[in-house]
């Protein structure tokens, strides 16, 4: 209740100087939007779908002691697994035959006690599972099925994309850190000016018996509100960037025969952005108030 009262008061204070408020909020918003867009790009790469020509297959190697009947059970289970378009089973006999054909060595079995090749089930994933995360999910699910030895996928592109995504995420976080620092600097300077403007009020409040926390509070709320509004602006900028880039990026992706869509912030992302912006504003105010309020006499 009191929280909203104080926030409302801070809001009214900000409205008294609309142009400087707007300028500050925009600066904070633009600054915050940089790591936000970086984060979105990292996420987009993770969801990148691959060239349809190079659709990856997942090879599932069945344990050697699994009977043909049990293999049928496994096939049945795979049939129910979400994200699988089709499966094709290569029995160990078929595997041996193609090995013989490919190598030119006949009667391999004569020199070996038993067929060393495993039965392989080749999975073709559905198109909407063709992303780093999608494939990984599929692998994790399939691995849990009994009687399966190993699951393999052509890992190279997976790892490469993962690396790009992680790299972008790291950059986004580093940027976020630097920008948080800049925002604390900008905001604490703004708050310093506000304190200077209200020197009289602060002085008189103290003279009539205001506690330090009473004097400090309005500035903390102002910082909080600045951060909150900056966060909302960053959120808005993200959607504008998304809107502006979607068309050209889709065209570019199509020319490479891939589909690529920009990541849309979900509720958790949005809440994290806005709440951390507000907390950042509060911290900046706290920092500034701690530094400048004691300069005003009486103590």
């Amino acid at each position, binding site marked *: 209740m009191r929280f909203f009262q104080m926030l409302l008061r801070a809001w009214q204070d900000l409205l008294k100087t609309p142009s400087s408020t707007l300028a500050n909020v925009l600066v904070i918003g633009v600054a915050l939007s940089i790591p936000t867009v970086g984060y979105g790009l990292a996420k987009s790469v993770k969801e990148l779908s691959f060239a349809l020509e190079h659709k990856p297959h997942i090879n599932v190697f069945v344990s050697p002691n699994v009977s043909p009947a049990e293999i049928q059970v496994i096939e049945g289970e795979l049939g129910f697994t979400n994200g699988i378009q089709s499966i094709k089973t290569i029995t160990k006999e078929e595997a041996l035959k193609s090995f013989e054909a490919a190598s030119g060595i006949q009667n391999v079995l004569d020199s070996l006690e038993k067929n060393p090749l495993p039965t392989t089930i080749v999975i073709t994933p559905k198109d909407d599972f063709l992303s780093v995360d999608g494939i990984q999910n599929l692998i994790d699910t399939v691995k849990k099925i009994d009687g399966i030895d190993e699951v393999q996928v052509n890992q190279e592109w997976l790892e490469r994309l993962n690396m790009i995504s992680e790299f972008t995420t790291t950059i986004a976080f580093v940027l976020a850190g630097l920008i948080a620092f800049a925002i604390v600097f900008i905001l604490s300077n703004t708050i310093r000016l506000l304190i200077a403007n209200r020197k*009289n*009020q602060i002085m008189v*409040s*103290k*003279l009539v*018996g*205001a*506690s330090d926390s*009473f004097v400090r509070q309005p500035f903390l709320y102002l910082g909080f509100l600045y951060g909150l509004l900056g966060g909302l602006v960053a959120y808005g900028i993200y959607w504008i960037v998304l809107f502006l880039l979607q068309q050209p990026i889709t065209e570019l992706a199509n020319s490479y025969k891939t589909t690529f869509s920009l990541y849309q912030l979900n509720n958790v992302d949005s809440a994290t952005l806005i709440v951390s912006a507000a907390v950042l504003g509060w911290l900046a105010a706290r920092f500034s108030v701690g530094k400048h309020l004691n300069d005003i006499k009486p103590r």
Partner: protein
Amino acid sequence: MKIEFSHVNKNYGSTRQALHDVSFTIPNEEMVFVTGHSGAGKSTLLKLISLIERPTSGQILINDRNLASFKSRDIPFHRRNIGVVFQENTLINEYNVFRNVAMPLEICSTHPQEIKKRVNASLDKVGLLHKAKQYPDKLSAGEHQRVGIARAIVSRPALLLADEPTGNLDAALSDEITDLFAAFNQVGITAIIATHDNRQLKRFSCPVIELQEGQISQVYQSSEVTD
């Protein structure tokens, strides 16, 4: 409030002391004048009581409690018991008269209805109820002073400190304002009034502490003033 100074010195850092070996006792519910030439140390004396300044040495007891024992977090509570009319103008130009007077109540989160009641009563006492919505820059010097007084009494303090409350007012208004303090004193508020307006002293019969160069030169009854 009972106020006791014993051997109080205050040095702002220059060679001359603003207060030197000042000792006196003001009993509870008393009204006292502090006089002296400009720079004698009147304001300093009042600032020591409200803990705006701390003594360089010596002891100040308020209701038998040593002010030296007040930590900075205790100071706000101490000040809430004291109404101060400052020598310099301390009204906030951005606030209207009502909000200026309400400040001592707002800082301790008084209920808005209670604030309204008390501020109006206070403004009524100084005859400025009709100016509640005015801003300070539209007020005359006398009205300024009276708003300051309304602010000082609004929280019903036990002690009133007035620093040259009639500083640049004409005789009639000065009388009116000093009478106001006398009236508050009648209802049990201890009052200390710093002034160099001899006219006011003659109108009352109460103790006068006269300062000279930071030292008490004499203490006498105000009714004894001749000239």
